[in-house]
């Protein structure tokens, strides 16, 4: 269901980014990078009010339309973690069966897996994620799409 999953560090560099159509990787990178604008805007606008809320899910924020290769637009759902690490899931919106709570559960899974990565004593916070477990979890989320 997801076509691109990205984990963005607090400093806005990608900790992890993976997309399914590999030939389109660059476009996804551009899209995810641009998305950060909206994420930052959203966080700063809502951030203080939402600070104590447990809800980190920001919802659909950045719809675009890609007419060249994928004549469909993608929905990006974002969640911001407490460590200001951002998750971005890019979903091909031609997959219309996807509901909001499914996206949420994807984020939950992603978040849990990320927490596992952080718990690894050999992982240096700030390094790019190279965990196989994380990778396979992301793969699983992407495989469901195809």
């Amino acid at each position, binding site marked *: 269901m997801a076509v691109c999953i990205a984990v963005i560090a607090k400093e806005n*560099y990608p900790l992890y980014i993976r997309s399914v159509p590999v030939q389109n990787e660059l476009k996804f*990178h551009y899209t995810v990078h641009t998305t950060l604008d909206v994420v930052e805007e959203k966080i700063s606008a809502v951030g203080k009010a939402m600070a104590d809320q447990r809800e980190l899910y920001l919802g659909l924020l950045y719809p675009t339309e890609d007419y060249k290769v994928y004549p469909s637009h993608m929905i990006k759902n974002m969640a911001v973690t407490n460590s200001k690490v951002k998750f971005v899931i890019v979903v091909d919106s031609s997959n219309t069966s996807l509901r909001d709570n499914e996206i949420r559960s994807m984020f939950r899974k992603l978040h849990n897996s990320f927490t596992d990565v952080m718990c690894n004593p050999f992982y240096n916070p700030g390094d790019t994620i190279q965990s196989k477990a994380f990778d396979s979890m992301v793969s699983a989320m992407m495989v469901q799409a195809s």
Partner: protein
Amino acid sequence: MEPQEEKPIIYTMENKPIVTCAGDQALFTSLYTPLAQQLPREPMEWRRSYGRAPRTIHLEANFVQFKEELLPKEGNKALLTFPFLHIYWTDCCDIKVYKASVRDNMMRWQGNLRLHGSADWVIVVVETSDAKKKNKTNILPRSSLVDKIRNDFCNKQNDRCVVLSDPLKDSSRSQESWSAFLLKLRTLLLMSFTQNLGRFEEDMRTLREKRNQPGWSFCDYFMVQEELAFVFEMLQQCEDALVQYDELDALFTQYVLNFGAGDGANWLGSFCSPVKRWTGLLLRRPIDMEKRDGIQSGQASLLELRSYLFCRQCTLLIFLQRPWEVTQRALELLHNCVQELCLLEVSMLEGALDCWVFLSCLEVLHRIEGCCDQAQLEANVSHTVGLWAYATDKLKSLGYMCGLVSEKGPLSLELNRTVDLLAGLGDEKAETVHSLQSPYKKLKEALSSVEAFERHYLELSHAAVEMYRAIGRMRSAGLVGKSLAEFYMRKGDPEQAESFLQNALRSYVSEGWSLLVTHTRKQMAECQKLQGKTETYLQTSALLAGDANLTNEERIHFCQEILTFANQSTDSKAQKVTLSMSSFAQLKQLQFRPATATVHSGTALQVELCLRSLMPVAVPLEQLAASVHLNLEQGETNGKTRGPQRRPYPETVLFPLGNSSAMPPSAAGPSPELEEIQDCSPSDPRSLNSTGMVCKNTHLVMRRHDSSPSPDTPNLVSPVPVVMDDGANMLMSGDVTLLPGNNSIVFSVPSQELGTYTLRQLCATVGQVQFILPHISPLVHYEVYSQESQLTVEPLTDQLLAGLPQRAKVRLQTGHYTVKKGDALQLTNIDSMPILTSSSCPATILNSTAERVDESVLFIQSSDKVTCISLPPTPPYHTLEFQLEVLCVIPSDPVRPENQRLTNGEIRHRPRSYNLPDNHMTAINQRMSIDCPWSIYSTPISLTFYIPFKAKHSLLSAGNRKYIQVCLQNVSDVNFHLMDQRLTEKHRESSLELQSLNTKAQQLVYSKQSLYYVWDVRWKENMPLCLQCVFSASFSSASEEVSAFKPYHYAFQLERVTTLYSVRTEIMPAAGQQNCHSGSLCGLEMSITRLAEPEDDEDDRGTEKKGQTETEEVCSTKLMYKVADGSSSWVVYGRSSGLVSMPMDANANHRVQVELMPLFAGHLPFPDIEVFKYLPPSANSASQPDTDGCVENDTLSLLVRPLDDQGDTASIRSQGTVHSVGSGEQQSRVLPMPRLEPFSPGQVFNHSQGCQVLVLPSTDGHVLEINAT
């Protein structure tokens, strides 16, 4: 309202619910104005079914004349034309009239209504007082007429008949009646709404439920539900109206989605037909009737349906003052439409959709601009910017499609496409024909020519960039900028493109998006190449060639670009292109050989660099050079202080991994270099005052990160020009080929000049290109030093003992001097320290790292004055070591006054011997000088020897007999064997005989122990006045097995050895007593006897003043005795001292009686008798005036008196004591006062030494003293 409207035009906002009026038209017309005014004046609460929220509503109505045609026919769903209420007006007050005409009329009216199933009617009876008054006679009371009407028509619905009294009068009654009427009217209207709308909704729902049946048409349903929406809108319930449209929207969307999922509905087929027109949204009209008709007739395309739907939603939203929702919905709609067209596989001319989206975006923006003021717009840029960007994007793609972006202009194919696209736009709508800025005009113009397109595209792009910037979406702005750059590149205008690319690149680099960096950089490279910016292009190429994100082919391509340029045979004068090395290769580590990185001048030092080439192919370097900076401040010549092992150097210097483009920016930032510091107190280095951590690179760590990127970041868009230092020392290495990956390059470092060298830069030259690493960090130093030759002689053991052969280590550090064959050390011989080493001795040669290199044999030649040690050839900066055996002769006489001259003319320093306090050994410093071949100066060498023994002598007497005792103390830590102890006279002149009383055997003297020796001195003739003796013994170290005995001498001198006087003392009890008793007086008789013959000039006072050379003094005429009781067991009665005049002749005797009293009982030792020479004041002292004698007497008398007053013991009162006191004073003042001079130890012999006398306790027994010790 005039009832001429046959078919109401649907202009919803102006529409009002229709109310028909029947009956007396004239009456109604007269009442119409107040009615139309007052009806909407008061709001009504509209409670609705299905739990929908009640709404407050201001009712208005369109009053039309009742016609039968107005009544809806069966199945007519039109709601707008539906009459919600039918009113019958009458002012009839005459029952006859009523019965005659009005009643029938009403019946007909009601029958009509009933026929059409309409139950919403009311009969208004207008009552005027005038009419009443006119014909009073046959007038029924009003109430009765009303009752009649009620009776006739409203069976049980009494409220269907209303009375309006005096409506045109301004009275309270009229008012009341009006308001009652209005209320009734409103209530009835609402009831009608509720009822009719409810019924309508019911029907609508039924229709919707049939949607899965064949033949159901969405368009039909659309019309039905829109009817409802219209009514809500008419009732100004825009929310509800919007809900209707949203439901329609959702329904349609769902159908499309289902279609996509394979569940196609027949009616959707009409929407799947190819789209022929793409006129875009049209939001200027509240209702686009044209499109509505299309929908109604089922001929609308998907775009038209969507456009119409959005147009309606937009109108309602703007009416609801929610313009920002419009923009948001617009964006969603546009995205959604694009997707739906795809889902439905609607065939469309390529680019048509772009046209539609572009037009729609602009139309929405125009619409929003039309209803908001500037401030509002600026505050909500974030809502509109998406549309701007979308429009920009679409225009761009249109431009590309129609060949408007290329340099050459559109091709014919592209022109045809343009024409087709423009044809699909149709004619401009009437609303915008006159506006200059309509989206239609814009698009048409933009597609018409290259220039116009550029103008419009740039305008849009810049607007989008500006807006993004304004709301802080820098990344989005960058992205738009990037597409602008692409546009410029297509236009062949790389200058314009570059700044946009740089902006984007900077942002990507700073945020660490490597893939984006790579992509942008590729564009950048192209841009720079087009511009002919060789240097930056090459730099970018270098970065790209080392970029892991690129394929190998691409990397090789860029690498080849560099190499091609580098190998261009341009004239040599051309400036070489300097590039930053960080993109080309990384310095990984650096290693010195030797690892200490400290060499003496002239030695080979090698630096091994590990350089990781980032290039994909092997790069042949013409030269790799490292510039070094020489710092002369330290280490120039003071090689003595800085040995080779001065500081511990790490074996290899590792360089932190240079920040590659793949590295996140946070990691690329400098990490703090921390160092622990400890502050020790100066007094005690072990106690710690404070400790802490110090960050050494605060200036880097604390630097603001958001400011411009640091200049040495290799990822910088335009690299800072790196300048190669000129004139610095260079380490060169030619013809190196850098293979991809790690390369090891070895430099030979020149080490001629002295000083500390710092590696500064690294420069790789490839043809015309130089890659320069501007800073090598951390700093790497190496040091070249020079050292003078040094010669040291050190004792091999802790202490060198004098008298025994000792070994000393000679260490020769050659420094920069090369010891050649034939070089020799020349040692001046010292008598007191001969060199014992035989003609050859082994020597070791060590290199600078203290490794044994060679061994050889030294040849030592000794002549009288000089010992010559020939050295083996030794290379510079080596150490030659050998041992010398030396012997320090113990000086027999510690007092040696004369200076000796060394053979080389230097003043010979007498071996300085000094006694260390306590039992320490006497040290002797032996100095020798060595002539070295490398210096014209002699090297003085000092060795300290310690004498292991200390000797003391003493003279013992027994009457006339004399003994000499020598005490030999071993002060060293070594045990010695001693033998052959002898005492000899130094000058064998007198007939002395020294007879040893000691054992002849070899003796062992342990460390810190002493041996005593005694000799009996006998003489035949006269005893010499001065005895000069030498004690000698042979000793050897007890630890050594082969005992080579070495001599030890101790010379001493004894003077005035002869016994002159003997003193004999006797203590006699008081007369008549056997023993002495304590507390009672007894007598002491001392007898002083002269034993030796006095000499001739014995009485010469002057001789005393001549000092030590005077040896002739034998006796004096006057002696002074003193009874000194050291143990305070005696009290002297009377004089304890006195002067005795001894006759000159031998055996002259003098007796003195002194009275004593013992204080204790027991065996008391005799009190000591001290005898002094008495020297009266000098008579022949010429300088001494006579008056001094008087002064002396005065002082004496002055001194005596206070002593008398004290009433002390008799001994103090005595005259002699006063004299002795006086003599003490005299010595200090050097006045001619009488002096006392003690005899030498052997000159007075006391016979009674050690005698004791028995003292009994006093007889009276009063005092019993027990002295317990």
